C-alpha cells in the first residue's frame, strides 16, 4: 500500500504538467497585454502532436529514436520519486539528492545527443549550449541541496523538507541555498534569463534549437518531459518553502483531495511568479552565462558555508 501514494503522486504530476506550461504562457500573455491562449491548450497540442505524421531526418540514427524516450523516462522518474505530494521516503532511497541531480543530467545528455544526431548547425548549437548549462548547473544544484542535507541530517530530499518551512527561520542561511536552487531551476528548465522558451531566433535559442528536428509523437514526448521537469522543480521549491499539506504513506480520501488541491494552488502560484519574473527581466547574452552560473554556484556554496557556521 505504501507504494500507492507514489503512483498517485506520479499520476497527478503527469496530469498537471501541461497545465503548468499553459499557465505560465497565459500569465505572460496577460502581462504583455495580450489575450493569450487558454491555459489548457498544451493538452490539446499534446494529443494533436501524437496523431501527426513524423518527419525523420535521413541522417538520424538510433540515438534520435531513443532520446525522447530516455528524456521522458528521467522526467517521469523524478516525478514519481521526489517528495512532491507526499513526504514519505520512497523505497530504495530513490529521492537521494545526488541521484536526483544525476538523473536530470542523464535526461539532458540524451536531449543533447538527440539534438546533435541529425547533424544540423541549429541542433549542434543548441546542444553545445545545453550541455554547457547542464554540466555547470549540476555542481550548483548538488551544493545547494547539500546545505539542506547538512541541516536536516538527511541526504534524501523527503527528509530535507524538515529543514524547510518554518525551520528556515532558524537557519536563515538556507535561504541562500533556496535562491541558488531557484537559479538552478530557471537554467534547468530553459527559462529567462538563461533561455527564451518562446522564440525561434537562433541567437537566443538553447532548448528549442535542440529539438528543432523532432516532430509528431517524439515532439509531444519531449514537450511533455519539459513540462514535467518544470512542474517538478516548481513543486519541489514550493514544498521546501511550504512543506504542507503533504500525504503520509497511509492516505485518506479527504486528505488526498486536500493535498491535490493545495498542489494545484502551489503550481498556479509558482507559474504566476515565473511569468512575473520572465516579464520583468531581459534575457542574458549566452556568453555572459558564466556570470549567472558561477553566481548560482557561489551563492549555493555560501549557503552551505553559512549554514555550517550556524549549526552548533
Amino acid at each position, binding site marked *: 500500500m505504501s507504494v500507492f501514494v507514489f503512483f498517485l503522486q506520479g499520476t497527478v504530476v503527469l496530469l498537471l504538467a501541461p497545465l503548468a506550461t499553459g499557465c505560465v504562457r497565459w500569465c505572460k500573455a496577460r502581462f504583455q497585454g495580450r489575450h493569450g491562449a487558454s491555459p489548457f491548450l498544451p493538452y490539446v497540442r499534446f494529443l494533436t502532436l501524437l*496523431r501527426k*505524421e*513524423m*518527419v*525523420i*531526418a*535521413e*541522417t538520424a*540514427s*538510433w540515438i534520435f529514436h531513443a532520446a525522447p*524516450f*530516455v528524456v*521522458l*523516462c528521467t522526467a*517521469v*522518474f523524478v516525478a514519481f*520519486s521526489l517528495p512532491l505530494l507526499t513526504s514519505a521516503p520512497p523505497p*530504495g*532511497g*530513490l529521492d*537521494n539528492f*545526488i541521484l536526483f541531480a*544525476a538523473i536530470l*543530467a*542523464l535526461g539532458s*545528455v540524451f536531449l543533447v*545527443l538527440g539534438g*546533435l*544526431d541529425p*547533424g*544540423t*548547425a*541549429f541542433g*549542434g548549437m543548441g*546542444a*553545445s549550449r545545453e*550541455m*554547457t548549462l*547542464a*554540466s*555547470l*548547473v*549540476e*555542481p550548483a544544484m*548538488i*551544493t545547494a541541496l*547539500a546545505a539542506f542535507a*547538512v541541516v536536516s*541530517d538527511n*541526504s*534524501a530530499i523527503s527528509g530535507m523538507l524538515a529543514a524547510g518551512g518554518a525551520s528556515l527561520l532558524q537557519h536563515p542561511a538556507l535561504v541562500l541555498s533556496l535562491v541558488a536552487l531557484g537559479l538552478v531551476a530557471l537554467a534547468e528548465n530553459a527559462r529567462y534569463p538563461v533561455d527564451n522558451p518562446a522564440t525561434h531566433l537562433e541567437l537566443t535559442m538553447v532548448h528549442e534549437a535542440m529539438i*528543432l*528536428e523532432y516532430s509528431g*509523437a517524439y515532439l509531444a514526448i519531449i514537450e511533455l518531459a519539459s513540462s514535467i521537469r518544470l512542474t517538478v522543480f516548481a513543486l519541489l521549491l514550493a514544498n521546501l518553502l511550504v512543506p504542507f499539506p503533504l500525504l503520509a504513506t497511509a492516505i485518506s480520501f479527504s486528505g488526498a483531495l486536500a493535498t491535490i488541491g493545495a498542489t494545484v494552488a502551489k503550481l498556479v502560484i509558482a507559474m504566476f511568479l515565473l511569468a512575473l519574473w520572465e516579464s520583468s527581466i531581459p534575457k542574458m547574452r*549566452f*556568453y555572459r552565462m558564466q556570470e549567472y552560473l558561477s553566481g548560482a*554556484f557561489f551563492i549555493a*556554496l555560501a549557503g*552551505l558555508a553559512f549554514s*555550517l557556521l550556524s549549526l552548533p
Partner: protein
Amino acid sequence: MTLHTSIASGIFVCLLGTLLSSLVGACGRSAGAHRISQILLALSNAIGALAALAFFFADTPVLPLIHLSLLFPTTLGLDHLSALFFLIVTGMSSVTALFAIHYVESERDTYNVRSLDCIAALFVLGMQMVPLTPSVAGFMLFWEVMSIASFFLVMADRKDASIKAAFLYLTMTQLGASALLAGFFLLGDGTIFPDFAALAQHARTASDDTILFAFALLFFGFGSKAGLVPFHLWLPEAHPRAPSHISALMSGVMLKIALYGFLRTVLFLLPPLPVIAGMAVLALGLLSGLLGVLHAVVDRDIKRTLAFSSIENLGLIFTMVGLSMIARANGLSVLAELALAAALFHAVNHAIFKTGLFLCAGAIVQGTHAHSLEAMGGLAKTMPRFTVAFCSLALAASALPPFGAFFGEWMFLEGIVGTLKEGGMMLQGLLLVALAAVVLISGLAIFAMVKLFAIACLGAPRSPGAAHAKEPAALLTAPLFALAILALGMGLLSPAVLSFLSPAHVGIVASRLPTVAVATGRLSPLTAFLALAAILLVCIMLVRMAWSGRRRLSHVWDCGQEVNAGMEYTATAFSAPIRFFFRFLLHHKTVVATPVVPTNPWIVRQSMTVHADTSIRFATIYGYVARILLWLSAQAKRLQNGIVQFYLLLMFLALVLSLIIAV
C-alpha cells in the same frame, strides 16, 4: 585448503601462460602464432582473474604463493589489496588480448606483429608481478619491466612523433623510478633491498622529517607514473601513440599499478602521516582533476581526449585517497573508510570504462583512418551495433546512473556531506573545497564524454573515411559489449562490491566497521535501475499505443539551402562555451595578422588558431630545467680533455673523497 591451492595454481597458470604467450609471440612467424599467443594471453589472464576473484571469498588475509631465494629473498603472496589490483590487471589484459586478435592482424603493415606480441605480454607480466611482490628489489624490478616494455610499445609504429613521445615517457618514468628507489632507501635506513615488512619496521623508528621526505619522494615517483599534474606532460603524448589495445592497458591498468604502489606505501609501509601529506595529495588530485577534465573537454583528438580524461579520473582517485588520509589524521574514521572504499571502487570502474573506451577509439581509428574527432561523424549510422557499446561506455565514464562510476562518486560525496558537521573549521573548509571541486569536475566530465561520443558518432560524416566506415568485426565488438555490461554490473551490484572493497575487508583497519554497508544502504542501485527500466518500458508501450501517425524520411530542415556536413558542429565548436568560460585557464586563441600588401599595414589577412593546451605553459617550466641541465653538462664536458694524467688525478680524488665519506 583446496580453495587456497587452486587459487595459487590459478595464479601460477596465469603467470606461466603470460610468459608462454610472450615466447610464442616472439618465435612464431605466421599469423597463426599471433592468434595462439593472444588466445593464450586471454585465457591465462582469465584464469588469473578468476583466481584473484576467488581470493575474496577465501577467508584468509594473506596467501603465500612461493618463496624466492634468488636475487632477492622474499615470499610472493596475495593480500586483499594486491588481489584487487591483480584482478584489475588480469581481467583487463584478458579482454584486450581478445580485442588484439583481430585488431593487430588488421594493422599488420603498421606494426611488427612479433615484437608487439612479445613485448605486450611482457608488459602484462610486469604489471601482474608488481602487486604480487612484497620486497623493494622485486617491486622495482617488475616496475621497470612494466615501464621499459611500455616504452617500446609507445614507439611501436616507429614514427618520429612516437619515438619522441616514447623518450619523453622514458625520461619521466626513469625520474619517477629513481625517486622511488631513493625513497625506499631512505626508509630502509641503509639496508639494501629489504622486503616490505622489514621496511615498515625501519620506517616506524625513523624521524618525522625522514618520513616526510621519503613520502615526498615516493609521492613524486608514483604520482608521475599516475599522471598527476604537474608531472603529467608525458601522459597525453605517450598514451595515444601506442597501439590502441596497449593504450587501453596503459591508461586503464598501468595507472592503477601506480595507485597500488602509492596505497601500499601510505597504508602499509609508512607510519601515520601528518595532515600536510594528505593535503598535498588532495591538492594535486584536485588540480589534476580540474586541468585534466578541462583539457578533455577542449581536445580534438579522440585518444588524447581519453588520455586527459585518465588524468582527471586519477586526479579524482587521488583526491579520495588524500581526503581519506586527512580524515584519518583527524580521527574521522567514517570518512576515512568511505573515501578509501570509494577510491578503490572508482579505480576498478575507471579500469573498466577506460579500457573499453580506448578499445572503442582503436576500432574507430581503424575504421575511419582518422585520429581527429573533426574528421569523424555519422558512425552511429554506419556502425550502429558498435555505437551502442561505445555510448554505454561513454555514459559510464560520465559517472551517470545506473553505471558503476556514479555510485563511487555518490558514496564519496555522501561521505563528505555526512561529515561536514564534524571537525574543526579548517577541516570543514577543506571538505567544502573538495566537495565544490569534485562536483564541478564531475559536471565537466559529462561534457567531455558527451563531446567524445556525439562528435565522433552523430551527425553526418565529415570525411570520406568516416563515410565509408563499416561495422567492426564481431571479434572487436564483443569485448566492448563485455566491458559495457561489466560497467553496468558494477553499478547494479555496487553495494556488494563496495562492501568487499571496504578498508576493513581489504585489511587496512583491524576492526570490521560496517560504515560502508550503512552508507550504501541509503540508496539501492538495483531499485533505481529497475524503476528506470520499468518507466522506460511503460513509456515506450504507451506512446506506441497512443501514436497513430505515420513516419516519413526526409532531409533535415534546411531553410531552403542545402545542408552539408561542413555546417555541422565540430569538437572545437561544441566545446567553445567551456573554452570561453574558462579562458583564464585555457588561454584560448591567437590571431595572426599578415598584411596583404607588405607596404600597407592596414589591410590584413587574419588567421586564427584555437589552442587550448596549458601543457605549453608547463613545457616552458620544463624547458628551463632542461636548459640548466644542458648548461651543467656542457660545463662537465670540460673534464673530458683527453689528458691521461688528469683522469688519473680525478680517479685519485674520487677515491680520497669516498674514503672520507665512508670513514
